[in-house]
């Protein structure tokens, strides 16, 4: 129900998200103040150097962080609701290892054209792994056990990529390893447009089906009695999660645990029904990844910490905290 409290919470989260975006733009090795940023956006940069940093480094990076965080958090929220598993995370169902396999093959076979080949191969790899996972889950007639199938497929594909890397050249191994750790350092505005488009499409589809997704919260049978085609809905939502995660992984590499963590925080704030959950997850997820990226680029002098390392570190602690908190249930 849209209570004044819920509206206020969502408004504050929106404010947080906007402020985070604004502030994060001004943080980085090159010291560019807010005033200069505004000038640059209005078309009068003080120097070419500043213009380059603003348009080609800072802006794409913060915007990709924003939409990637939104996408990952929403994918996690939807996955948790549709698989009825509070510990579900898009990274747990084979997407990253599939993308990793794609990236590995691209690094070995198409090493000269990596800028185009790597995202594409990673995306195809991710879709490939999700397809296998869904086929397995359908074959055993238990769509709710899709996460277990995902873990199995994940190990299988990882072992394949590790075998290829073991035989391959050390440089390729290095590149793949760094890529898997996740980073927003190499992103461009074009990446932002692609990810934003997929996120927008996902929002529209989720909005169209929000009542059906809500109905699943009380169990499959209950949803079916309300006229929901449970298996079809689950498949559609998995496809959305897969597309979101695969696109983000393809450009940013492995950024784990955002999808697991953020929805849990959001549920405490705005409740469990789909619309507020997705709105809240998008806003908090976006802000979260922006700040993690700020930490990634300013924690060490002269070097970047891969963003996936930070999210995994925070996420694993969070994961244990959830397990501790729910130990009595």
């Amino acid at each position: 129900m849209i209570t004044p409290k819920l509206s206020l919470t969502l408004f504050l989260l929106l404010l947080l998200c906007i402020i985070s975006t604004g502030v994060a733009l001004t943080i980085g090795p090159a010291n560019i103040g807010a005033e200069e940023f505004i000038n640059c956006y209005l078309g009068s940069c003080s120097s070419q150097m500043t213009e380059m940093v603003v348009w080609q480094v800072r802006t794409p990076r913060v915007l990709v962080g924003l939409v990637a965080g939104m996408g990952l958090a929403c994918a996690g929220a939807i996955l948790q609701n549709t698989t009825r598993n509070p510990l579900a995370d898009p990274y747990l169902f084979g997407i990253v290892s599939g993308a990793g396999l794609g990236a590995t093959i691209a690094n070995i076979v198409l090493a000269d054209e990596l800028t185009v080949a790597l995202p594409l191969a990673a995306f195809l790899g991710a879709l490939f792994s999700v397809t296998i996972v869904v086929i397995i889950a359908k074959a055993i007639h238990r769509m709710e056990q899709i996460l277990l199938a995902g873990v199995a497929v994940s190990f299988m594909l990882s072992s394949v990529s590790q075998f290829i890397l073991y035989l391959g050249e050390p440089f390729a191994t290095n590149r793949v390893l760094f890529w898997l750790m996740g980073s927003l350092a190499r992103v461009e505005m074009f990446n932002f447009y692609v990810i934003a488009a997929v996120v927008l499409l996902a929002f529209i589809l989720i909005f169209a089906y929000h009542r059906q997704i809500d109905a699943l919260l009380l169990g499959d049978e209950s949803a079916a009695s309300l006229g929901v085609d449970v298996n079809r809905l689950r498949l559609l939502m998995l496809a959305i999660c897969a597309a979101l995660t695969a696109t983000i992984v393809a450009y940013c590499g492995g950024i784990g645990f955002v999808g697991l963590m953020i929805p849990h925080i959001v549920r405490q704030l705005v409740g469990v029904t789909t619309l507020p959950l997705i709105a809240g997850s998008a806003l908090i997820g976006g802000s979260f990844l922006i700040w993690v990226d700020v930490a990634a680029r300013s924690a060490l002098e002269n070097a970047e910490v891969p963003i996936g390392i930070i999210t995994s570190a925070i996420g694993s602690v969070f994961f244990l905290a959830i397990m501790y908190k729910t130990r009595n249930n």
Partner: protein
Amino acid sequence: MLCLGSQKEPDICFNNRAGLHESNSVLIFYFITPSPRSCAYSFYLFNRQYSSGSIGRWQNEIFAEHGVAKLMSSLLSLAGIHWQVDNKPILDNISLDVDKGEVIGIIGPNGAGKTSLLRCILQQQKQTSGCIYFKSKNISQYSSKELAKYFAMVAQKAAPIFALTLYDVVRMGLLPHKTAFSLDNDHDRHQIRLALEKVGLSGDIDTAFNLLSGGEQQRALIARALVQQAEILILDEPTNHLDVYYQHQILQLVKALKITVIMTVHDLNLAAQYCQRLLLLDKGKLVCDNTPDKVLQPEILSRVFNLDCQRDQDPVTGAPRVYFHLAEHADDNA
């Protein structure tokens, strides 16, 4: 009730599945039987002109496999429902009509097919043969969303995840009536509040559903069914896990809703008290379909439940009451 002719102005209606009918010097003997394979009723009609002096031959006119849309006027009709799994029949040739406003209890031992029958009616599982008609239309012609507008289900156990609130659960009932991209409006919220009031749960609507007592959860699901505006309420063991007070509270509530109710009930005395009509199932067969007084006969029950059975009357309501005892010869039958 079965009618011949057009839906609105039937030429002739019959209250039973077989009988004699007399009109305009024609004596008609008829019987109606579900034909399991073709999803229709076969209507057999034999007529005979009679006038003083001449007795004609019985003429055999068979209106075989008439579209039941023409024949039926009950709200819900089951015609020869069979359901089998691996050649093992779970439901065996079940035919019955349900009229609007009836409160029907399905009773029988474990494994008799009570829940399976409910699942067939809801089309959550497809019968092997036979047909179900709802409002004179084959139920398979309704989409699952349309069915959800007419049938509401209160399952034995709900399995909520996360901190789903009471309000969220009742709100789900809006689903069949809403299109994609729709938001709740004031009318919807009013409906939800009315439903909650009707089941006596208008207190704290933000309480987590899984913190409610069993009886409150059942009432919340009934409120959801009210928001769903269903015409037939289907309940699977609504009194399971409830204490005596809540058992009576739930059944009283269900009865007071004045809609068509089909429910499975384990407690025969509760069924006798709150249902107008009982269906006794045994090994997938419909053994009895009648008023509680007629169905709860010690001879029938002791055969079906394999227990000695005695019966008397509830001193207050006058409903039949049955008692069971382990038969001394039970070991022989086991």
